[in-house]
């Protein structure tokens, strides 16, 4: 492979079902149902997806959910705030593990 990430992958994503049509169908049906209007609006779900896309650092998802958020009526401020939620949780998750460090250090130290 000359490069791991290609823009065309996103357009061709549905072809992933070819290896296992049953599982592919189950996944994409589920996926579609997840993002439909429900107790949360489709726009709110799209903002969550955008934040998660950054947390898992998936360029396909970032591309896809940036467009999707805009199309669902989210503006740049809202999208940036959503992103900071992911950043805060990622940073906070590192920092809160510091409590393990702290406990160990206290135990071992004098």
């Amino acid at each position, binding site marked *: 492979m000359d490069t791991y990430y290609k823009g065309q992958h996103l357009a061709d994503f549905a072809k992933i079902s070819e290896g296992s049509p049953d599982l592919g169908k189950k996944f994409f049906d589920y996926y579609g149902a997840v993002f439909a*209007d429900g107790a949360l*609006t*489709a*726009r709110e779900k799209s903002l969550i997806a955008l934040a998660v896309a950054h947390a898992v650092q998936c360029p396909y998802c970032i591309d896809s959910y940036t*467009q999707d958020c*805009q*199309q*669902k*009526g989210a*503006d*740049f*401020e*809202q999208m940036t705030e959503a992103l900071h939620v992911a950043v805060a949780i990622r940073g906070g998750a590192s920092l809160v593990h510091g409590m393990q460090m702290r406990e160990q250090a206290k135990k071992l130290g004098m």
Partner: protein
Amino acid sequence: MRPATLPIRLEQVAEDLALDRATPRATQSLRRRAAPLATPAAQLRLLKAVPLHTEFDALAGKELRPAQLDVFQVNLGKLCNMTCKHCHVDAGPDRTDAMMDDATVEQVLAAIRATGAHTVDLTGGAPELHPRFRSVVQAAFDAGKRVMDRCNLTVLLLPRNAGLVDWMAERQVEIVASLPHYRRPNTDAQRGDGVFERSVRALRVLNAAGYGKGDPQRRLTLVSNPAGAFLGASQASAEREWREGLRQNFGISFDRLFVLNNMPISRFLEWLQDSGNLESYLQRLVNAYNPAAIGGLMCRNTLSVGWDGRLYDCDFNQMLDLELDLPAGAHIRDFDEPAWQRRRIVTARHCFGCTAGAGSSCGGQTS
């Protein structure tokens, strides 16, 4: 007679707009800048040069047939207090060159009295700036028509329009108000810094006059369009969010929301080209082609009258100079409704804007 109902001359309107420092403006008209895309021919050429794998007629040609005439849409002219980046009319405060004259207004009024259409839809520019706006509304109301005013909101705050909202409310005029988004950033990005704040003030004036509170005689419809090269949101879902957002943040209510797509013509076309989005946007429209959107398209049940009296299938065709295909010619003084019923609807590539996604028309989404 109240002074406000006296005819006001176009020169005075233009002078008022030249002195207006309160309305923010996002750009200048293509015409004023003598931009390459200022002419319809240049716009059609650019659209035609985009590589697409199909044409509108190949997909929709067989399905798209005239319905009965419901809406008489009159474009009173291109004069506007604003200059939004996405304007499909190339309207602005400099556009006194394209305003309906008195003789044409009289021909339009005669046709309104004769037509079976139930609705008279007034657009522009900002139709409220036309010196004959009130007399057109009054004549249509007297003829028993439902009148719609396609309003940019900020025009209602101009000193010359003091009292206009109450005057329209007395004549049960539906206000169809464009507001790109229920929050500031996307609205100001498209219309100019400060437009959102003035739009909110205008919406408060409308609410205070009884608009937007469920009274069918004082209906306030908001019209949203995307601030960029993507399609409109789902109308039903967006309406719920807008209702909540405008109520919570500003105490504003409205009756319904239309979500439109941006048509790849005029200033939006220029923006698409300048931002490098032209090809991908057109392809997005084609890929999102939705046959179910055809039935509700405005070209089927609307007559579009231009400022010079010429006739079109829709306001977009009007801006591209694509006249009605009628054997006797396409001018309001010769309007022949039975011949209109038999016409072939004129289409070109911009029509993909109306059939993309959930569809897009003067009455909102169509499927």
